[in-house]
């Protein structure tokens, strides 16, 4: 089923009634793309007897009201057994009886409720969703937590003065709990340390494993000899706190990966192929081969590069080249994948699918750009490299020093060396960055900004230049009427003709007319001439609405449709791609922050200059090809600039990949979403500001955490070196520093929502 009207429901005022907190911005944006074939039926899979399951992504779910609206709304559909919203992942899983409802009914109902839904391949996401690693870490964390609490209870008895046989008993029980718990919970660290040592490297996990093993070994020896100090509690709490850091790090990466995979799943597109016998089949766009004949209806994107074989239409090239003026095409015209067919049906003979396509060219440029970018050193890596050596040197010094001082007391020297390893506390360091990234990523996610990777936050905090694309990034990517005839009669005729067309300019005109309260009149013989305009008759007079040359007007550089009334002079309705509402404000803020702002566009000089003027950008360059954009960006980078590229089109993709950091709106082309680092939703540019602020806050918190860890070590290491560290001091300092670091990370949540 092809349902081209589905998306338009979203725009109706009544449809937002499902709750003020559920912005329909994204829904409207996705609807604006007018995906006519979600191919929902392809993603249905059998779940139980008489029931099939369908997983849908519903990006507009924001709150409890949305959940209840969707679940109730879908449950009322005949044959639906259950509908369950997952608010964290913004998804719905529907179980229904295929005999009584179809996948399209489900999608249609969601659309009627005001939520644009996209089916996705749940099977491809299954690995990410099951999250075996995360569960494994959580289980180990649970065991370590249980053991730590019990050992601590026993240790409190020792600290408060238990001695002799009681103390030995406590130590033995502590050991009995701690040993198996550490053996189970410490596996991730031991495994990684062994792997590193085998490869001849040293990583963070080496001193951690060494500290844990030494602590447990020394404690066992102490316990067996009725000694005073046992460090079972320190060993297990070390494992516990580090597992928290490990789990947070994993969570951030998993969320980012799942966002990336969802964005990929979103782009699962279908194409209609016409066989030699005239029969039509639906295939995945990537399965198209050279020589196939693809049918592209108005509202669909061209699935592959090729030539028009039949049909007349206009193509919206904004996603591919950044040009806002639709281009008229007819048989023989070369078309590129990603262009939007706006007016008439086309049949496209798929051309070369391999190396020769525009997409392949772009992919090569992306690859080259990514190779050229220097490997980024994450903060945590930098810090831990210094740290690992420091710790090892320190404990060796402690061991050697005490061997010398005590004249060869091996037991005491090993004890002190172990204390140094434990007290230098990689806990704070292990938590310092993961906690910050988890909190910052969560804050961005709640605002509809999706991170692909934690390192992107670090890079985003370092930028000093922001380069915007124009069409679809700085602007909304859709035409808005800017000048029109005053005469109501002209408006009435134009509106009456415009409602008959799906051309974006015609639709924008019809919408403006509705806004002015103009009622269309009934015309006779209304026909759409693809690539030209709409024609109709009123009492023997011919009315035409369309391209300048078709109605007999002189074309100019504006984007306009012209109305010709009989033989009277044609009148123009001019459109402009309006700036996003907060673009000037965002640009002003960026400049106030001391960032350089530039505009690189593939569009012609006129519109680029106007947009730059309106947004307050001085450095605007027009008619840039993807290669020119990339070259300009690389020139900036050679000059020492760290550039944030904000773009959406296929022509921006190489620049997005080459830039120090990059952001794209969610309606961006598939290649761009794959090349970019952050994806933001909504109709505003404010997420750019929000992301930069959050990234900077994250950097500040991470640096503070490092500074705190360093300060802590400056105080704690001498204490350990001189042998004053008792198990009580080790336990207090370890938990204390971890808590301080985590609380500091949570400060990112404060500030503007």
């Amino acid at each position, binding site marked *: 089923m092809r349902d081209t009207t589905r998306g338009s429901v979203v725009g109706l005022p009544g449809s937002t009634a499902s709750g003020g907190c559920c912005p329909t911005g994204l829904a409207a944006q996705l609807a604006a793309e007018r995906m006519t074939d979600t191919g929902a039926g392809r993603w249905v899979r059998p779940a139980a007897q008489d029931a099939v399951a369908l997983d849908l992504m519903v990006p507009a779910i924001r709150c409890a009201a949305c959940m209840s609206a969707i679940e109730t709304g879908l449950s009322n559909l005949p044959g639906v057994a259950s509908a369950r919203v997952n608010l964290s992942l913004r998804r719905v899983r529907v179980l229904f009886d295929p005999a009584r409802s179809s996948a399209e009914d489900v999608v249609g109902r969601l659309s009627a409720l005001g939520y644009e839904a996209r089916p996705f391949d749940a099977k491809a996401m299954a690995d990410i969703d099951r999250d075996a690693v995360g569960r494994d870490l959580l289980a180990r964390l649970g065991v370590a937590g249980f053991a730590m609490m019990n050992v601590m209870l026993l240790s409190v008895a020792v600290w408060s003065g238990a001695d002799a046989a009681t103390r030995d*008993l406590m130590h033995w*029980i502590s050991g009995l709990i701690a040993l198996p718990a550490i053996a189970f919970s410490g596996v991730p660290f031991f495994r990684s340390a062994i792997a590193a040592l085998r490869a001849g490297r040293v990583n963070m996990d080496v001193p951690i494993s060494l500290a844990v093993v030494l602590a447990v070994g020394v404690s066992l020896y102490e316990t067996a000899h009725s000694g005073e100090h046992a460090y079972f509690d320190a060993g297990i709490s070390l494992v516990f706190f580090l597992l928290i850091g490990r789990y947070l790090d994993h969570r951030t990466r998993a969320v980012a990966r799942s966002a990336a995979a969802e964005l990929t799943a979103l782009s699962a597109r279908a194409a209609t192929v016409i066989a030699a016998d005239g029969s039509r089949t639906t295939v995945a766009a990537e399965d198209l081969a050279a020589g196939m004949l693809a049918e592209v209806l108005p509202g669909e994107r061209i699935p592959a590069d090729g030539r028009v074989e039949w049909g007349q239409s206009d193509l919206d090239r904004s996603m591919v080249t950044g040009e806002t003026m639709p281009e008229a095409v007819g048989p023989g015209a070369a078309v590129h994948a990603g262009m939007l067919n706006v007016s008439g049906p086309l049949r496209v003979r798929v051309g070369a699918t391999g190396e020769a396509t525009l997409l392949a060219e772009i992919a090569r440029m992306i690859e080259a750009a990514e190779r050229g970018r220097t490997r980024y050193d994450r903060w945590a890596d930098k810090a831990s490299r210094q740290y690992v050596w420091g710790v090892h040197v320190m404990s060796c010094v402690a061991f050697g020093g005490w061997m010398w001082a005590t004249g060869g007391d091996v037991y005491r020297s090993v004890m002190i060396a172990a204390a140094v390893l434990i007290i230098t506390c990689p806990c704070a360091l292990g938590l310092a960055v993961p906690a910050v990234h988890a909190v910052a990523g969560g804050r961005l996610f709640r605002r509809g900004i999706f991170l692909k990777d934690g390192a992107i936050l670090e890079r985003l905090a370092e930028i000093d230049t922001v380069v915007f694309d124009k069409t679809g990034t700085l602007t909304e990517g859709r035409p808005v009427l800017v000048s029109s005839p005053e005469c109501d009669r002209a408006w009435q005729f134009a509106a009456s003709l415009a409602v008959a067309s799906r051309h974006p300019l015609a639709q924008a005109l019809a919408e403006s007319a509705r806004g002015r309260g103009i009622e269309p009149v009934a015309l006779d013989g209304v026909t759409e001439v693809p690539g030209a305009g709409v024609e109709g008759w009123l009492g023997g007079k011919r009315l035409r609405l369309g391209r300048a040359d078709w109605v007999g007007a002189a074309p100019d550089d504006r984007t306009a449709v012209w109305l010709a009334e009989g033989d009277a002079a044609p009148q123009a309705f001019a459109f402009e791609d309006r700036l996003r509402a907060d673009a000037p404000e965002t640009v002003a803020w960026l400049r106030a922050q001391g960032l350089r702002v530039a505009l690189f566009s593939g569009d012609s000089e006129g519109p680029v200059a106007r947009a730059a003027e309106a947004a307050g950008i001085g450095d605007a360059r027009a008619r840039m090809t993807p290669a020119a954009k990339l070259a300009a960006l690389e020139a900036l980078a050679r000059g020492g600039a760290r550039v944030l590229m904000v773009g959406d089109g296929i022509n921006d993709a190489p620049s997005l990949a080459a830039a120090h950091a990059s952001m794209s709106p969610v309606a961006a082309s598939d290649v761009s979403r794959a090349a970019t680092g952050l994806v933001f939703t909504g109709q505003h540019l404010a997420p750019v500001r929000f992301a930069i602020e959050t990234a900077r806050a994250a950097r500040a918190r991470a640096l503070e955490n490092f500074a705190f860890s360093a300060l802590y070590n400056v105080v704690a290491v001498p204490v350990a070196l001189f042998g004053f560290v008792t198990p009580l001091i080790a336990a207090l300092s370890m938990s204390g520093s971890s808590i301080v670091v985590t609380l500091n990370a949570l400060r990112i949540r404060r500030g503007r929502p």
Partner: protein
Amino acid sequence: MTVLGLLIPVSLLLGAIGLAAFLWSLRSNQYDDLEGDAARILFDEADKPRD
């Protein structure tokens, strides 16, 4: 101090019950949608646990 002979096993048992409950909740997918579960308490109608 003989009371320790009773108290220590009791505290360990309680802890182990807590651990078992945690592992059970982990296995039965209760950590999959923390945000959603937090919001569900606002619904009026009786909500059944997920299948």
